């Protein structure tokens, strides 16, 4: 460059700025006029430049966003021998720049500004940026002898080269600045994404991401809260120790609570704080961040609100620039995506766990049921246990006490999944381990309640159960119930169905419970039905439950048609399935049938 000959400056620039006020446009325009006159620009070009500048400035003033009203509008004029270039910055939301703005209707009072700029300038380009937008307009200078620049061909070429060099250098600087900023943001995000891929530590990821953000956005602190199951904002990560941060309610119940974070979450909008809008004394942020300025940004993904991010710096600094805000919002959006992703993954995992757990529970439940039924002479036994997709705690057992006596146990553990299956297993063990208690079902229930009470009450579960001792030697059944469905029985002699209700409380409700016993005389042709509420709760297409009344009718009607326990079981299942129109079970459905088949044998003998 040092070898270039000295000559009048080939590229002269003029910089000025104006406040966001229409009255400042004319003085700025006159400054430009003076500058262009000094450079020997022709009158026609000056008029064009003045008009274009005025229109650009008018736009910048009239459309500035409220938050940018304090920013100045920068004007740059570059005068080269061949052209005049005007740059005008604006802090507007940015307007749509058409390649060719049509002439507005003749009676229109507005809308000629852009038309003028395009009409009187040779080039016009609008650059939208994150921080500010920039209108760059060029006006070619008419080649006149009045140019103050030397007319010498070589000098002109050098001057032209210089001016072009200066222009491209400036463009390069701008681009480099932009690129640096963008790439820093991108690099931070990429770095954190890679981290996230390596571990499932969302908090650690968020912490590192936002530490980077502090650096990039020149912020001093952040507090990210997420919505917890109680619908309160609780701290997720923060740049300081946040052990003392209490949860903040938001939404309708937050009325009267002065927390800007809750406000931002409730309104889903950015909320500012700073010297002009100080934090209220009650605001949880104030204790840690007195004399701060910044804003709270709601973190959300589409319509899903995830939480809030408060970010700030010392109030002695100026507020965040548009560019910094843009970066902060970008990070918040990115965090929102990651939080949602992590939640979805967690949900999938827990769904897998739940289905795995249900599988285990079903396995336990199946293994508890007796593989074979005890045999009694002249008395048939049948059992059915259908499980719903959601495993409940239905359970039955048949225990041979002597050649002439059997203990029937039916129970429903209130609860689902593995815990319910485990209690069913406990109940089974308690019964099987103590056959000597079987002489009195009521006594047995009392003892079992005593055994299981502590475990059941700890997990707020209970068991309804019915224990029946079928004693053929004494031709009687002793019934003890703990809050269970009534036992139904029919005999050949009685026309109607008898129901033996369980007077006692379910197991696990009170520690010292006592239970009553009912003794049924087993007349010839007796049928006993023990069931869980899944039977009476079976519903038809209209949503009506099957109910005890229908069950009693069925037993009365089938007394004659089905003369064995197995036949009764088959017709009851068919009746229930027909009633439900084969829709899937919503609850477990279990029943036990004991039927005096002695008469059949007698009849068969008679026929022979």
């Amino acid at each position, binding site marked *: 460059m040092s070898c270039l000959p000295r000559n009048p400056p080939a590229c002269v620039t003029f910089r000025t700025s104006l406040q966001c006020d229409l009255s400042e446009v004319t003085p700025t325009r006159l400054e430009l006029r003076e500058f262009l006159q000094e450079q020997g620009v022709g009158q026609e070009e000056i008029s064009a430049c003045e008009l274009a500048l*005025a229109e650009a*400035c008018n736009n910048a003033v009239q459309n500035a966003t409220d938050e940018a009203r304090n920013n100045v509008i920068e004007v740059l004029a570059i005068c080269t021998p061949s052209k005049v270039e005007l740059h005008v910055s604006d802090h507007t939301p940015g307007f749509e720049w058409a390649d060719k703005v049509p002439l507005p209707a*003749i009676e229109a*009072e507005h809308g000629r500004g852009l038309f003028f700029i395009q009409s009187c300038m040779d080039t016009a380009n609008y650059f939208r940026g994150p921080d500010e937008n920039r209108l760059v307009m060029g006006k070619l200078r008419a080649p006149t002898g009045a140019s103050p620049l030397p007319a010498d061909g070589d000098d002109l070429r050098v001057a032209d080269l210089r001016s072009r060099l200066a222009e491209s250098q400036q463009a390069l600087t701008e681009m480099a600045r932009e690129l640096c900023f963008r790439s820093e943001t991108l690099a931070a995000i990429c770095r954190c994404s890679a981290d996230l891929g390596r571990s499932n530590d969302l908090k650690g990821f968020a912490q590192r991401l936002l530490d980077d953000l502090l650096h990039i956005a020149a912020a001093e602190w952040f507090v990210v809260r997420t919505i917890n199951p109680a619908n309160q904002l609780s701290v997720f990560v923060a740049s300081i120790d946040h052990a003392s941060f209490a949860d903040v309610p938001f939404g309708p119940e937050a009325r009267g609570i002065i927390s800007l974070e809750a406000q931002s979450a409730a309104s889903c909008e950015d909320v500012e704080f700073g010297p002009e809008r100080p934090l209220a004394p009650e605001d949880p942020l104030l204790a840690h961040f007195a004399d701060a300025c910044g804003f709270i940004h709601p973190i959300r993904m589409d319509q899903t609100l995830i939480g809030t991010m408060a970010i700030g710096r010392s109030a002695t600094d100026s507020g965040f620039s548009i560019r910094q805000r843009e970066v902060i919002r970008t990070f918040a959006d990115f965090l929102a995506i990651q939080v949602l992703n992590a939640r979805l993954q967690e949900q999938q995992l827990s769904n897998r766990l739940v289905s795995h757990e249900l599988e285990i529970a079903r396995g336990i439940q199946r293994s508890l049921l007796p593989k074979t039924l005890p045999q009694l002479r002249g008395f048939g036994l049948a059992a059915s246990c259908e499980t719903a997709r959601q495993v409940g705690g239905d359970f039955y057992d048949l225990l041979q006490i002597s050649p002439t006596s059997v203990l029937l146990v039916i129970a429903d553990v209130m609860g689902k999944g593995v815990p319910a299956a485990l209690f069913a297993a406990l109940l089974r063990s308690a019964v099987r381990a103590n056959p000597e208690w079987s002489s009195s079902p009521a006594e047995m229930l009392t003892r079992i309640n005593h055994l299981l009470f502590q475990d059941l009450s700890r997990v707020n579960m209970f068991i309804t159960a019915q224990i029946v001792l079928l004693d053929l030697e004494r031709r009687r059944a002793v019934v003890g119930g703990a809050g269970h469905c009534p036992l139904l029985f029919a005999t050949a002699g009685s026309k109607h169905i008898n129901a033996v209700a369980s007077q006692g409380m379910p197991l696990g409700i009170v520690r010292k419970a006592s239970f009553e016993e009912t003794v049924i005389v087993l007349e010839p042709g007796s049928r006993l039905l023990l069931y869980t509420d899944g039977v009476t709760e079976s519903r038809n297409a209209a949503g009506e439950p099957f109910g005890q009344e229908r069950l009693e009718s069925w037993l009365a009607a089938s007394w004659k048609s089905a003369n064995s326990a197995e036949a009764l079981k088959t017709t009851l299942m068919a009746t229930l399935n027909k009633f439900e129109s084969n829709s899937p079970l919503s609850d477990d459905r279990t029943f036990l049938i004991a039927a005096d088949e002695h008469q059949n044998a007698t009849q068969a003998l008679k026929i022979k």
Partner: protein
Amino acid sequence: MKINDSGDILTISNIKELAAGNSDMFRDEVRAAVPSGVKAIEIDLSDTDFVDSCGLGALISLYKFVNSRHGPVPVRLINPTPSIQQIFELTRLHRIFEIVKSE
């Protein structure tokens, strides 16, 4: 800016510029001065060295105002500079405003 009301004709002169910074004031002051029964409005642009789109907007607004209240009233632009006359021609507004060049 000077406003002179001769009864039939309202004359506005001494206008330095018609731009965003003063166009609202120009429109409001002239509107207020329009006498009933006005026959014509003459806007002397000989001292005016700058007109922008807001200035044009104010002139159009004024034109619509007088013609809606006072019947057909011509609005004349007196002695605009060549570059300002160009602006009117560029926007075809010379079709509604009468451009008058004295001498």
